[in-house]
């Protein structure tokens, strides 16, 4: 089973790279959907295994919720939002793509560097998985930093969340049920609020380019 997990974690990482390589907001959302699907798959596998071991179904429930929220609802919400706001095609990133991808590679290296020696993590096989998922988190953060548009940042945030969720799965095979549910709820609400914010920004500033709003300085 672990090799499944390894494969999935690598796929996640790849999806993160793809995301970083994207240029259009539409494709951000698609890539994110794909990544969430991978996360759901991962959850499903772990859920089945845990069900097979000791009839716990909570992970499965969580898997269902993940599919509901992350794979279906949030992308739908984002699509709607970005359809509503006026959107002009323009350069959406500070550094150009190749450099960003290069930096992402460095991030992966860095997370290897920082986890390789860490006692307790490199015991057993979870090492790679943690490293990958942690790299996903870093890449997500980098994505937020590198993208000018509001929606891009939301997507980046969601990628971070994915990464963390996956890390949780790899590291601990699921947090306590209520905690997981709470986390998912929080993400849902957060995204809704951010969506509303995007509307407000659009109506106040005439674009969703976050780089333009720098009135509050000093």
């Amino acid at each position, binding site marked *: 089973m672990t090799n499944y997990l390894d494969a999935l974690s690598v796929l996640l990482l790849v999806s993160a790279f793809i995301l970083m390589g994207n240029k259009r907001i539409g494709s951000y959302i698609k890539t994110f959907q794909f990544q969430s699907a991978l996360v759901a798959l991962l959850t499903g596998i772990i859920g089945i295994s845990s069900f097979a071991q000791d009839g716990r179904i909570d992970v499965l429930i969580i898997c269902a919720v993940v599919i509901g929220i992350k794979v279906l609802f949030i992308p739908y919400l984002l699509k709607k939002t970005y359809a509503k706001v006026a959107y002009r095609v323009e350069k959406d990133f500070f550094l150009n793509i190749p450099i960003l991808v290069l930096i992402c590679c460095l991030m992966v290296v860095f997370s290897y560097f920082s986890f390789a020696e*860490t*006692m*307790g*993590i490199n015991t057993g096989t979870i090492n790679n998985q943690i490293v990958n998922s*942690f790299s996903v*988190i870093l890449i997500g*953060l980098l994505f*937020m930093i590198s993208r000018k548009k*509001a929606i891009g*940042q939301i997507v980046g*945030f969601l990628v*971070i*969340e994915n990464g*963390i969720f996956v*890390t*949780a799965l790899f*590291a*601990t095979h699921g*947090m*306590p049920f*209520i*905690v997981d549910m*709470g*986390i998912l*709820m*929080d993400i849902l*609400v*957060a995204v809704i*609020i*951010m969506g509303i*914010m995007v509307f*407000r*920004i659009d109506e*106040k*500033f005439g674009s969703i380019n*976050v780089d333009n*709003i720098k*009135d*509050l300085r*000093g």
Partner: protein
Amino acid sequence: MGYVLLTVPLLAVVLFIVLKKKHLQHVISVAASVTMTIAAGFLTWAVLKGGFIEYSAWGGFFRVDALSVIVIDIVVIISLMTSIFSVGYLENEIKHEKLTTDRMRIYYVLMHAFIFTMLLALTVKNIGIMWVAIEATTLASAFLVGFYNGKEAIEAAWKYIMICSVGIAIALLGIIFLQFSSLAVLDSSQFLDWTAMIDHATELQGPTLRLAFIFILVGFGTKAGLAPMHTWLPDAHSQAPSPISTLMSGVLLNGSMYGIIRIVAIVNRSFGNSMFVGRILIAVGILSVVTAAVFIFSQKDYKRLLAYSSIEHMGIIAIAIGFFTPVSLFGGLLHMINHSFTKSMLFLSTGNILQKYNTREISKISGLFKMLPVTGVVFLLGLFAIGGTPPFSVFASEIVVISAIFQEKNFLVGGLLILLLAIIFTGIVVTLFKLFYGTDIPKETPPGELNIPGVIVIVLLLGIITVMGLYIPNELRILIDQAVEIVIGG
């Protein structure tokens, strides 16, 4: 009693949504806060007697001990003050058509939701749920920050929610590592239960624990406004309505600090010393104080200035925790209390000033003593207090913290801190003292206080901080000592 504490704000939220009459809403808000205060009083009393309270229901998620009760008391008292203040404040806003009645409803709903989430975070013993609650505070307050819907308000709100969500996410990562470090020790029923973790601290996996601490520090530090994660704080505090700024600096920051303290307790217990944690915390703390010291000098907006001063004091608390001696922790907790009261007083006063002058720019304001006799005096004394002048309470706790630092013979940090504090005081004097004097007062607005309940509240707070500068009641002393014992361990 604990359930009352949690249910009352929820109930209030529901009532706000149901009942639409304006005056009723004021009544509900104040009544709810009063009930909470009473409940908190009972809790405190129980804790003083029994050491801690734990309810078995729902997997016994509810647990309150001295440490959390201190913060809870801060929260409820300040929310009481705020809700009393809000009555007059909102009335004025409505009078000047800055606000409609149903916007006011939203305000109250969000405010009490915020208080609820904060209390939840303080009363649970599962760190995961605590995390959920703290994230929820961000969500609840996001719209409050952007409440006035102006360009700048929206900007502030966006930065607030973005930065805090990311930060909090990092904290979640830390919590995952925390659980990971305890996998081998605890069974699934007590995962993330910090009581259990404290008990088995020594058996946890050290390296993972260190990672966990790093991430949690970054995460909760973001919400606690520690440099360099503080960046959202000045914007949010300056843009939010003054009562909300009060809640944020008096409640939110302490809540996050509470989270950090819990984790630090576990980590240090596990390592048996405070080397690793201490160094990081002290560095971050000093960095925060430096940031404040540098930025206060060239502030043009008095609410931003107060926000920076909040950063400074959070930094001091962080340093106090970093040294992790009984004295320093006592000082840190005392400082937490004193700072929240003083800062709330100041932010509430800015509410009055803002409503009088309709500007946040220092250069546009003068003759405060003439325009707002009471608020002016309170604000000036408050500035002295926050600058660490006796006989106000911030002075006392700062002295304790500094002495604790020197007790460890850490002259560099101590001397630096003292000088930085002096510089910050200078900055406050240079920038803010222009407000008070001068005779060229705006014609269109006649002198006189607008917000009578608000004035009563700030005077009350002034009394509290003045007394606490020279004397604290025995109960409080015992409570803080208990809390210190909890953190350091018997």
